[in-house]
């Protein structure tokens, strides 16, 4: 059981992070991952991510620990970038290995859902006509609340 979380400005390679999770633990038959990347559109030039140093890392560590505990994971990984990113660049990688597929898939969904509402990151969009802070998407709170209330677990 290993947890790895990191906040960094450097670009990461999602494939390398996935490879680091696969073939490592012979008790794990399943590895799931989620990668968030900068989506183009609305004249977007770049995305800027701000965070609360120290608090963010602590929040990510708790989210990964909770996922390992709930789903008995082999490993849980969360890497989140901060700073300025161009369209198409990766923002966040979340991955989990587990004995069986349902645990790996659910733990991955859980970590990204909870991260959105429980980790102090803020996105600012830079467009050709100016910049503005991003509002959370309407469904984000509901997704996190469902996990925290345990509802999602019961539909597994």
């Amino acid at each position, binding site marked *: 059981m290993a947890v790895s979380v990191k906040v960094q400005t450097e670009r990461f390679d999602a494939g390398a992070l996935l490879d680091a999770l696969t073939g490592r633990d012979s008790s794990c038959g399943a590895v799931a991952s989620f990668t968030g990347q900068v989506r183009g559109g609305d004249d977007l030039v770049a995305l800027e991510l*701000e965070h*609360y140093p120290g*608090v963010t890392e602590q929040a990510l560590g708790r989210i990964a620990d909770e996922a390992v505990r709930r789903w008995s994971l082999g490993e849980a990984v969360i890497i*989140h970038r901060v700073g300025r990113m161009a369209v198409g660049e990766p*923002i*966040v990688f979340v991955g989990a290995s587990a004995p069986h597929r349902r645990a790996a898939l659910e733990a991955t969904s859980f970590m990204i859902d909870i991260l959105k509402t429980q*980790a102090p990151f*803020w996105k600012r969009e830079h467009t050709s006509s100016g910049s503005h*802070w991003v509002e*959370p998407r309407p469904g984000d709170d509901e997704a996190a609340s469902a996990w925290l209330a345990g509802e999602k677990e019961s539909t597994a």
Partner: protein
Amino acid sequence: MALTIRYFAALRDRMGTAESVVDHMPGINGGGLAEWLIARDPAAEALAHPSVRLIINDEIAPRSQALQDGDTIAFCPPFSGG
């Protein structure tokens, strides 16, 4: 000692500063501090919005939490990472 106040993202833009230090007010809690800041500067009105979360000494905390001398209180707009 004193209270250290931090503002993030849109709230930092609104307040025009990332950090300020005020004297500790015995018996005050997080919500009371927001009200005190708004009374001093109408630009701080956004701090009262229920979507604004407080992180007190690195922990998400309710507005009802009593503040101790030396505390750091961060006012945070809704998180939008991921």
